[in-house]
């Protein structure tokens, strides 16, 4: 059914914290990926 499963977490106020945690975790992953990429670039240089 349309938007059923994946939208459930976003649509349900009771699951808002879960969504915010996923956002925070993804942001932390981005930060880590960026740090590793910089380190790799410095090593290559």
């Amino acid at each position, binding site marked *: 059914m*349309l938007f059923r499963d*994946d939208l459930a977490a976003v*649509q349900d106020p009771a699951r808002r914290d879960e*969504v*915010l945690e996923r956002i925070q975790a993804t942001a932390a992953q*981005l930060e880590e990926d960026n740090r590793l990429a910089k380190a790799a670039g410095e090593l290559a240089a």
Partner: protein
Amino acid sequence: MFATFATFATGSQLNNQRDWIGLREFARRCGRAHRAAQQAIADGRIPASAVRHDAGGRIIAVDYHQASACWEQNTDQVRANFRPFTPAPAPARSRAPAQRAPVQTSARDAVLEQLGEVLGTVFCSTLIAAAAMSVWRHGLRPAQALDVHEDTLLVVMYAAADALQLDTNR
């Protein structure tokens, strides 16, 4: 924001006669300025039933067909500097399903069913990724980032659903 989405999704009358688009796109299609469209909504020349707002009162979507018809009907052509009201034609993708290649109904329904699920998945994946990017790069709190991106993505999602003639109430 979540309550707004729930209302939008379950209480809307989205169907094949509706064409929900952003305010700027609506103004563009009508050949008018963005500000003129805002003013027409504020004046009531475009009825509230043709407009969706978020929890903060911002306009997030306009039903092109109803809003453009009412705006034309309620516009004083003298005040509009004699400029004729000539709504631009809707994009071919949303205006002419009859022009599409004939597809067997059952196969078409199955494809649309899958497209709907893909669309929902893309929406959530994009929302969380975009919010995470704002947290990382711009230092927003996760709740702030979620609010910032949700309205835009909702408009995109419903525009895509309308273009595909998906039933968003299912």
